[in-house]
């Protein structure tokens, strides 16, 4: 439970300071547990509870944000004083504008079918050990084996000077694995992550034993039988994992309003997208990318953002057209529109900024065998390892973890370390088919300064790209 009295008291103080455009108080409490198993052995166990609050004050001259883990009315008053002073010191020539939004009084939560509190340490450890046993049982030589579970349960209370009052509760679980497979004197690695909003039932849905046993067998197969792609132009089928990372990196990030307006210029960078590019073509008609915080059970789920704006799906690229940016109240206010609920902060110690939630390529109407069927010579990149993109989000690279050659519409043996190095319009413009089924991956999205690693889903169906250069 969070202390709403403190929030109300501090908000009263905050809004009494110089009639701010907006004053916000958020109080948050998070319980975290983490267990790990390294090569079958238990590694350190961690358990903690964190609580704190922030005050954000927006004046025409600037924005002040102050936070502390000391939860009391006097501490809150000090935060309000500091935030107001900081907002004054901004000295902006063009006054800050926040988009007008409707005040909301509500509460939301994510239910747990199996409560995190009901799962003991022993059970978690045993589950990880069972995963390790399943990996060992494959007889593949896995010289590096590390697995962990972590779970968080966050309750929060948000109050702003416009009358919004939102209580929320969101549990999340995630699992992470690092595997190094060796064969014939060579190695391949896999770093896998699973995550969801919900209780421990989500962990059971992941079937980790099978997934990671399959993973090491696949890596051995890639080492033993994988062949390099002869550099050249090929038709490329991207699996949901690759579609998802492309959606995240070369659609979601460049469509963040704060980047577009330059606020991230010295860290995560700017964007090749400019405010006047809404309506311009970026890809083929199959390139529809959605960011949707409301996907049930998703890692990036939320019902209301950190400024109290109701979450909804955002169609970033729509049938190949730049359609809608991700906005918080500040970026929306600057452009004279309404926020679409993209403001997130990973904890009370960090300012809320524009973030993605669950970004995925929209499905199409192709069957998966249809996607392959018309390819004479190509490659299927099912998953990726090394990847990166420049700070305008225009030049990206994905190197395959699991890939296969396609010959005359059929899978024809593993391909190793196939690299796609391509521009953003090059990628989205080359798609000529999308399959019906969307798959999701959990990831931590890094942005902000200090860094805020936000839980997100990336995803998509199978994509077919025609005539792209592979190395």
């Amino acid at each position, binding site marked *: 439970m969070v202390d709403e009295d403190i929030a109300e008291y501090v908000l009263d103080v905050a809004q009494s300071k110089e009639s701010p455009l907006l004053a916000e108080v958020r109080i948050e409490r998070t319980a975290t547990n983490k267990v790990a198993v*390294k090569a079958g*052995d*238990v590694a*350190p*166990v*961690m*358990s*903690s509870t964190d*609580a*704190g609050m922030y005050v954000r004050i927006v004046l025409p001259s600037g*924005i002040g944000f*102050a*936070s*502390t*883990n000391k*939860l009391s009315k006097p501490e809150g008053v000090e935060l309000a004083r500091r*935030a107001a002073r*900081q907002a004054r*010191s*901004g*000295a*902006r*020539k*063009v006054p800050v504008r926040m988009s007008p939004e409707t005040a909301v009084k509500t509460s939301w939560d994510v239910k747990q079918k199996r409560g995190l509190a009901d799962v003991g*340490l022993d059970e978690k*450890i045993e589950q990880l050990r069972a995963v390790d046993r399943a990996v060992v049982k494959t007889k593949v030589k896995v010289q*590096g084996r*590390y697995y962990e579970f972590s779970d968080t349960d966050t309750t929060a209370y948000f109050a702003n000077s416009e009358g919004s009052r939102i209580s929320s509760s969101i549990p999340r679980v995630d699992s992470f694995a*690092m*595997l*190094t497979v060796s064969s014939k004197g060579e*190695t*391949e*690695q896999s770093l896998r992550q699973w995550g969801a909003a919900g209780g421990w039932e989500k962990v059971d849905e992941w079937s980790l034993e099978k997934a990671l046993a399959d993973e090491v067998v696949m890596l051995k197969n890639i080492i033993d039988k994988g062949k390099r792609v002869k550099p050249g132009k090929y038709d490329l089928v991207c699996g949901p994992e690759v579609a998802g990372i492309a959606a995240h990196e070369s659609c979601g990030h460049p469509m963040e309003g704060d980047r577009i*307006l*330059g*606020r991230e*210029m*010295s860290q995560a*960078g700017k964007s090749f997208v400019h405010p006047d590019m809404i309506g311009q073509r970026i890809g083929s008609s199959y390139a529809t990318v959605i960011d949707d915080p409301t996907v049930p059970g998703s890692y990036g789920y939320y019902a209301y953002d950190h400024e109290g704006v109701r979450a909804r799906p955002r169609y970033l690229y729509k049938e190949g057209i730049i359609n809608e940016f991700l906005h918080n109240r500040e970026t929306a206010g600057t452009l004279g529109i309404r926020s679409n609920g993209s403001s997130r902060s990973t904890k009370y*110690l960090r*300012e809320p900024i524009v973030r993605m939630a669950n970004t995925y390529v929209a499905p199409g109407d192709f069957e998966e065998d249809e996607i392959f069927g018309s390819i004479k010579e190509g490659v299927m990149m099912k998953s990726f*390892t090394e*990847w*990166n*993109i420049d*700070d305008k989000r225009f*030049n990206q*690279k994905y190197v395959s973890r699991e890939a296969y050659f396609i010959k005359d519409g059929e899978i024809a043996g593993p391909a190793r*370390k196939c690299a796609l*190095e*391509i*521009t953003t319009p*090059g990628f989205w413009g080359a798609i000529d088919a999308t399959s019906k089924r969307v798959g999701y991956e959990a990831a931590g999205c*890094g942005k902000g*300064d200090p860094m805020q*690693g936000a839980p997100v889903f990336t995803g998509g169906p199978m994509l077919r790209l025609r005539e*792209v*250069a592979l*190395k």
Partner: protein
Amino acid sequence: MSAMKELAVDLVEAARSAGADDAVAEVMDSTISQVRYSNKVIDATNWWTEKNAYMFVAVGKRTIATDFRDLTEAESLVPRLVDMAKRSPENETYLGIAKGKFKYPKSRLDRKIVYLRDPARHVHDAISGAESEGAIDVGGTLYVRHYKTALASSGGPVAEDETASMDLSVRAFSQPEASGHAVSCVPRLASLKAKETGKRAGELATLAKNPVQGEEGKFDLVMEPLFLGGLVLSTSGMMSALMVDIGMSMYAKKIGKKVASDAVTFVDDPRMESTSMRAFDHEGVPTRRNVVIKDGVLKTYLHSTSTAKKYKTKTTGSCGPLLPMAGLAGDPTTFHPVVVPGDWSRDEVICDTKRGLYVNNTWYTRYQNYGTGEFSSIPRDAILKIENGEIVGAVKSVRLSDNMLNVWKSIDALSKETQEVYWWDEASPPSTLPMVRAKAMNMTRSS
């Protein structure tokens, strides 16, 4: 004894009374302020204050760690923590904590940083410095940090430290695709060069004007310290014995072997005056200057007491946080990486380069395989083309796609000047580095 140190000692005693065999308490009090600016104006001013205590307890090999966020109730919660440890499975990787009483250096704190009232002034200096060199757009951050730490351990260490530092980051644009980046990271207010840092970023941005698409192929890379700092992040992480253990290090089984060119000596030096200087590691062992790579040969991994026992050696005083925000608990860490300088002047390095690129900064360094070192990284900000010893223009949109061991083995020139660099989570941790040249690096681009 300070109140923080007293609390740390009390927490450890409470753990011992409750049945813990080993206990470490690290009480921290931090205050950080940040001025964020972009488009030449201040976007937001942030201020964080935290007081908390990390606590690690072991009952035999059953271990647990927590973070007490409410210090008023911490002591009363210790018995519950010890009870949780008793009910935890055995942690087979746990081989003990440091034993003994140690002496620590006195903290070298610049109180002028602690009492600084108007950090925004330095931001305005940085912006005007960049503009004076032709920048049309400027953004960045200025951090002012103040940390107090007290640590007590049932093994004997009782220690206390206080540090303050500032780090300024300036990214300047002279055109939409022409930028330069410079930083100033200092443990003393008088050393902060806000105007000069802005000017340097502006100067690089101007040099980077009118970039053309870069070519694929082999180029000698002349790396500014900030660029090298981006590579040090992953490189230094792989020096941890724990990373070696879990297969995430290119340094596995390479002690005594060549892992860099003869010109490279890589040190972790938490004792030198820097923004990340510290007196003791997270189990209370005094920090020390560790030579990790000497003349290109790997001399040691970085160790905590626990990893050192496994490797039948001694701790290097490098134990990382027992309850990290991210990563693995107790993962041995570098606190302040240093690449020992060479004897080249910066101009000499450029003059001696026939076909190369002068690179200012990089980001998004990602690996295919940490065990073998294949990676790529994306140069950003000024990428200047060098032909026959002269800078002849700027390029854009290229990628360093190579092998990290090969990068370090290809370094053949190091400047005599060094600079402390730290930027975001890319050039991190704070490190003191020269400018270096790596021969024949593989550059790629989008097709």
